[in-house]
């Protein structure tokens, strides 16, 4: 038994280490709670143990209440509701970081023993997105700070083996999980808090360690990161989204129309939607080679998700050119052959192919599709708006004047339709001269397209 005693003692001393290390921080972070300040002496260990026992007692009192009976469950729910209420009441005026912090402070000061802190933390986690603080590390630290310090730290190897205070540990892990879900990296303060609350090798600390191990490694895993704060202005958002889809640095974004509201003589408010398009030089040259007898199609709307925002875009595309219609480009041997370059031959006149040993290319089955000539985003998905885009494109692509344009628009998402209904301009008369002109062009183009269809 003597040896077991020594072992226990050793463990206790080890338990002490984090306390000593964080003694100063304790003083700062943890105002109430512990009635003593442990120092490195055997007597102190004794005192410590005494406190520990009282803790256990505490636990014995609370844990069953959480797990037993329907009646008890209802009580717990009630508690949760109560905490929810706390947030609801605080959030009535303004849901902000300050009010959220205030609620946490109120909870901290209401009860010295912090009864029901687990429930409170779960409720707080649930309410975080509402208050817009789900990506704020200081708020998470503040929530973790609600846990009473040192009481949940295991004191011996048996406690350590048997998942000491599982509800509290699970709760803390849940906090860390939510941080992870929102991509929030725990910081040193989080670590200090967790060690103070649960001890060096507890589940939350391990979770913390895993997070800090993997998070930095995956931080830049996405080569196409989307910013957390998307541009507010629809034109800027379209600019960003189109550049993201096109993924071509040469592509040129053109704003065909900036949104504006106009008051007509009759007093009606006209809201003109924004039209932003993108086209790369490659697309331009492809379009220039398009056979004018075949129509081009305006298709859409297609969705693009940017985190939680969904935007819609339209494409100007052509059907796949049937193989018999493919124009074989005339190749002048003097111009393109070995003598295109004035200085060196561009191909060798040899009957030898590349040997297998040096062929490092993969076999890729290429599936041809109709070419996409341009893309756009607009505030409204109706034909008139998109026709304005096409007429804008025509300035840089004169061939569009000869090609029939067919609109193949899906009904699209409902909310888009709704805005369309409400924002639709009353009639072509009210439109600017330019708009009228473009409308006429569209009609003609549409007719042309139908002709080809027949």
């Amino acid at each position, binding site marked *: 038994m003597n040896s077991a005693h020594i072992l226990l003692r050793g463990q206790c001393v080890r338990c002490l280490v984090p306390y000593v290390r964080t003694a100063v921080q304790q003083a700062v972070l943890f105002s109430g709670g512990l009635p003593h300040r442990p120092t490195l002496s055997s007597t102190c260990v004794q005192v410590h143990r005494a406190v520990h026992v009282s803790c256990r007692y505490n636990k014995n009192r609370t844990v069953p209440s959480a797990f037993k009976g329907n009646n008890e469950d209802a009580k717990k729910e009630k508690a949760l509701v109560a905490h929810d209420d706390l947030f609801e009441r605080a959030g009535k005026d303004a849901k902000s970081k300050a009010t959220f912090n205030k609620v946490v402070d109120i909870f901290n000061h209401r009860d010295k023993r912090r009864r029901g802190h687990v429930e409170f933390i779960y409720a707080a986690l649930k309410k975080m997105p509402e208050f817009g603080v789900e990506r704020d590390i200081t708020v998470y630290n503040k929530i973790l700070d609600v846990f009473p310090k040192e009481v949940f730290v295991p004191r011996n190897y048996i406690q350590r083996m048997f998942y000491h205070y599982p509800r509290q540990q699970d709760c803390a892990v849940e906090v860390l999980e939510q941080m992870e879900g929102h991509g929030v990296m725990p910081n040193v303060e989080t670590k200090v808090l967790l060690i103070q609350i649960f001890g060096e090798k507890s589940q939350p600390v391990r979770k913390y360690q895993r997070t800090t191990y993997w998070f930095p490694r995956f931080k830049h895993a996405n080569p196409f990161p989307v910013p957390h704060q998307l541009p507010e202005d629809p034109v800027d958002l379209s600019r960003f989204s189109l550049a993201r889809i096109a993924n071509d640095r040469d592509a040129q974004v053109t704003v065909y129309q900036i949104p504006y509201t106009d008051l007509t003589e009759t007093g009606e408010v006209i809201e003109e939607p924004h039209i932003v398009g993108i086209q790369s030089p490659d697309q331009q040259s492809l379009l220039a080679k398009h056979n004018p007898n075949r129509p081009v199609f305006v298709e859409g709307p297609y969705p693009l998700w940017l985190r939680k925002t969904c935007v819609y875009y339209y494409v100007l595309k052509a059907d796949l050119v049937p193989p018999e219609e493919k124009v074989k480009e005339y190749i002048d041997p003097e111009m393109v052959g070995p003598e*295109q370059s004035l200085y*060196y*031959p561009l191909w060798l006149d040899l009957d*030898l192919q590349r040997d297998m040993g040096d062929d490092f290319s993969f076999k890729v089955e290429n599936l041809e599709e109709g070419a996409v000539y341009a893309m756009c985003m607009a505030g409204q998905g109706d034909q008139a708006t998109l026709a304005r885009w096409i007429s804008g494109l025509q300035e840089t692509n004169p061939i569009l004047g000869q090609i029939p344009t067919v609109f193949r628009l899906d009904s699209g998402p409902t909310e888009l339709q709704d805005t369309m209904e409400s924002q639709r301009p009353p009639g072509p008369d009210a439109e600017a001269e330019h708009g009228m002109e473009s409308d006429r062009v569209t009609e003609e183009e549409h007719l042309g397209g139908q002709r080809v269809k027949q």
Partner: protein
Amino acid sequence: MSLNRLFFLSNSLKVGRRLIRPQIGQTRKEPLSHLQVQRSIKTNSRNLAYAKDLFLGKLNKDEVFPYPEITNEELEEINQFVVPVEKFFNEDVDSKRIDHEAKIPPETLNGLKELGLFGIQVPEDYGGLGLSNTMYARLGEIISLDGSIAVTLAAHQAIGLKGILIAGNEEQKAKYLPKLATGENVAAFCLTEPGSGSDAASIQTKATLTEDGTHYLLNGSKIWISNGGFADIMTVFARTEVVDKDGQKKDKISAFIVERAFGGITSGKPEDKLGIRGSNTCEVTFEDTKVPVENVIGEVGGGFKVAMNILNSGRFSMGSAGAGMIKKLIELTAEYACTRKQFNKKLSDFGMIQEKFATMALNAFVMESMAYLTAGMMDRPGLPDCSLEAAMVKVFSSDGGWVCVSEALQVLGGLGYTKNYPYERYLRDCRILLIFEGTNEILRMYIALTGMQYAGKVLTGKIKEMKSGNVGVAFEIMGNKLRQTLGRHQDLGLTGKDGVVHASLQDSAKQLEENVAFFSSTVEGLLYRFGKSIVDEQLILKRVADVLINMYAMTAVLSRSSRSISIGLRNHDHEVLLANTFCADAYFKNNLLMTQLQKNSPENNDANIKKIAQEVLEKRAYVCSHPLERTL
């Protein structure tokens, strides 16, 4: 005169044949018969080519040994020219002022004209000096002492009037050459356009025939035209509509002689350049310039060949020019290194400074040897196609020149960096050598691909049999390989009984032979591995070109120093020393390059190099995060 014309004829036909070759048997029956007629004319011309045959492991020693000589009369003649030119450049040319004012003063230009330097290669009948390529190279050595003047003269006669000289008819020559030779008129060469560097297909300048059929109307603009600001006669390349045999209309390139007096020509502002600031480079715009039909050089639609001939013929002289410059730099820096003291020691006693002088001497020696060997080959009757050799001279001398000028500047340290000394000007001036007349990259492609095409024609049958599993051929090749790896000693006849190399250079000759044998098997391997897709393997072609250049340089120094010992030239022992040093160095470089060539791209780092470049170019920026960045 008529001899000269014959030379030109056979030369242009040769090039013409090379151009037409790919199409033989497909469409053009006519040129073929035409060609055979021409071939019968030049029965006595030699078809041997030195550099091309190296691809097949053949060392045509008759081509390059003995080192070409000029007759005593010619030597006397050239010395007569050299002395006054050298005096003029030493006394009357103020390079610093030319560089500073970005203009060659008229009195200097007049001096050059009086010396006849505007018509060095124009035949005497037309009032020029009528010098051979070798003598032109000799004068180039002196002219190169001032970059601006050298470029102005080169733009005038190496490319500007060359079109008339090699492809013009009698009337055109009689009309234009006399005035050009005296420098009364200055010539320019207008090929490059904003959208077309070496890409002939994208030339946009158009020449349209007027309704009466007597004139062409020229429209378009040309950029980076040397002498473009004041040239009176220009060789302009433009698209013309040509009706071919099938009755289809096609755009083909034609060359025109355009006088400034034709009207409609405007020159832009002279470009402000890094070096060769005294030379005039600007944009030239043609607007409805009326050019009479008789001013077409060669035939309508044949401009491409004319352009290629002009470009290929002018390059060899850059070797002697570079050598001339380095020789001058050695004199200047040696003076400094032998007088300046550091730590109570003369600068010239330090090993690292000595190394710089050795580098300069070696480079000058090799450039000189290559330039005069090539010039001598070009001057021989029969005119073998030396464009490959000329390109090699250009690449080697421009690369070497840049290194040497930089080393010379380094000897002087901070002083060299100031404008008080001419080194920074030389450095700026010689940078253009790597760029113009075909960038070194493009010329390396030309060198390697021309050889590969030649070797491929010969080896296709053998490689095909091997690929189809012919055991006999495979064993033969295996045997060759085995012999090489075991002995690596090849006897290609440079030394020994019928040897042409002096005994004191025996080791170097052996090294060359070994390299040639190794090279041929490497080329065979490359053709086996890549076939015609080798066109896209630029990193491989670069190595092939470098090996070939080194081998040609080795040949040149071996040939030259063998001759020097044999006839007892002054300081020939120094030449032997230089030759042996260079050969040993080049031998190792070649072996390294060829070992890399025998490996696959993942092994010789090519795959990685390409990948790095691709990733950088995809981002269009440096990819890595900053070393001070954190994620935690």
